[in-house]
């Protein structure tokens, strides 16, 4: 290989690498589930702290690298051992140490100030939601009303825009961590310990959340969505969620409900308004209206739901839902029924 060709090849690799890094950085700044795309007051203060840290540490890093390479490249001079040089060096090192300490103090103060703003909500909480983490799904229960009006919305947290929502979080099995990067920082969920956090969204949108503490086989598929909507839409939503499941309208839906109630589904799931009342798995009273199935793993379409019911272990190996060997007609009927639960 000639020298010129090798040079061109190296340049191509270098360009490709910098393109990769640049695209990764840009992707991290703009998208959903990014702390650099804040959509609420808490996330904004986390994001500005992040940028501050990045800028200051970046400048420090550059200065240190410049000094390092300058020291490597510099030749020793005969005057280096002279007392004047040593004295100047002592002065410079002292100055640099003072600047370092000052920078660290500034960073600590910035961090404490940002942290103080995160611990308590920006105003009186409009709503309280109990968050329970399970291996590997999330349960959200709206508990600031009389218990008969409690609403459970697994893997989908609806919140009104512009008001703080207080979240009471806990875990049923192992340590999880609740994290919606666009709205707030992480909050660890320790079994046997109830903690609180809060979130506020400034504008309507769908934000993805994710378990941020390794919690077992399907930790990566333990996601949820936060749907932020205007207050009147939120009220409509929660009023609809308080309704029991809709009655099956067609023969196929009726058959599907019968299959549902006579098979293994009923042992774990709740459909309010029917005999199914178990709380081992997520509630299905309004499952047809949700955006995702299997804790944010798949979009909620008939095909995905069909695959999930028939063999969840092919989609999320190790998840708690067992394979269901239903006859084809029964499976289709169950699908129609479950999709009708809107």
């Amino acid at each position, binding site marked *: 290989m000639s020298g010129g060709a090798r040079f061109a090849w190296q340049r191509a690799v270098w360009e490709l690498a910098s393109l990769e890094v640049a695209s990764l950085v840009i992707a991290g700044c703009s998208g959903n589930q990014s702390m650099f795309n804040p959509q609420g007051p808490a996330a904004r203060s986390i994001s500005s702290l992040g940028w501050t840290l990045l800028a200051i540490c970046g400048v420090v890093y550059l200065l240190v690298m410049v000094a390092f390479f300058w020291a490597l490249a510099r030749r020793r001079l005969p005057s280096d051992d002279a007392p004047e040089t040593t004295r100047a060096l002592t002065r410079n090192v002292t100055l640099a140490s003072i600047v370092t300490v000052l920078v660290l103090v500034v960073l600590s103060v910035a961090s404490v100030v940002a942290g103080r703003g995160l611990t308590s909500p920006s105003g009186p909480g409009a709503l309280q939601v109990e968050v329970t983490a399970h291996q590997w799904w999330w349960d959200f229960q709206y508990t600031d009303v009389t218990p008969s009006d409690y609403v459970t919305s697994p893997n989908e947290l609806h919140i009104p825009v512009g008001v703080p929502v207080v979240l009471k979080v806990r875990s049923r*099995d192992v340590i999880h961590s609740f994290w919606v990067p666009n709205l707030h920082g992480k909050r660890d969920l320790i079994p046997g310990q109830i903690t609180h956090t809060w979130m506020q969204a400034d504008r309507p949108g769908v934000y993805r959340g994710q378990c941020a503490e390794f919690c077992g086989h399907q930790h990566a598929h333990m996601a949820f969505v936060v749907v932020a909507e205007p207050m009147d839409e939120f009220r409509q939503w929660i009023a609809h969620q308080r309704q029991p499941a809709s009655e099956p309208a067609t023969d196929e839906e009726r058959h599907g409900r019968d299959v549902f109630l006579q098979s*293994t589904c009923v*042992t774990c799931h709740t459909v309010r308004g029917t005999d199914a009342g178990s709380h081992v798995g997520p509630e299905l009273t309004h499952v047809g209206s949700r955006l995702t199935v299997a804790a944010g793993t798949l979009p909620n379409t008939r095909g995905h739901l069909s695959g999930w019911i028939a063999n969840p272990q092919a989609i999320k190996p190790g998840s708690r839902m067992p*394979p*269901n060997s239903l006859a084809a007609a029964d499976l289709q009927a169950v699908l129609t029924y479950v999709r009708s639960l809107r």
Partner: protein
Amino acid sequence: MMCMAESNHEDCFTDIKLTEDLFSLRDTTAPNFVFLAKTSWCGSVTSKHWFDPARMRSLVAAQPRWDLRVGRQAFVACVVCVLLAACEREMRPFQDVSAASARTQKPILSPLSPGGERPPEPPLSPFQQNAWGIAEGKRLFDAYNCSGCHAHGGGGMGPPLMDAKWIYGDRPANIFETIVEGRPNGMPSFRNKIPDSQVWQLVAYVQSMSGQVPIDALPSRGDHMRYSTPENARRAEQPVQTGKP
């Protein structure tokens, strides 16, 4: 130098020059030789006035090298053990069809069988030696509210499961049948309500409560507060067939 850093016998290796002399005595690789020097040669020299090159040479020359060989063999054995330990990992049959379809081979509970000789029964249930399956059984035992009557195996409304007594048989097939078909005086039938693979997990856990499965597959702790001795610390019971709980 390595020897200097590691040696506790200060009397032996106070002089770097001596060690270097030693290296020049034998044409061998340094670490092995240090091993030899540390283990055997050093121990034999106790006097303060031991610095005698002639005596040193004779000692080193007379030293057989069996300890070197044993040391090397022990090291290789350790490495092999560590590597082999990574070879076998317990399988977690998440979608094992054989466990799910085990129901189709109906357990034989009567000594009478049509057509003469009856086929031999599999001695083990699918999860009897599987720690994951037993732990899943333990989780399901609470999730499906078996504890509601059997109270974590101690017995309440239903009979205890951690003692030696078995009313309807102690074999896996008997327990499977008890769960799926139910039994008189209160045990409900879970037919079509629990998938067969999970029933087999429950069977393995029920067996584990009285120590009927290998101890290394037993759960040692649960997800919740402890309510009794951990399964792997219980005494293995000798099953007794009885009509009374």
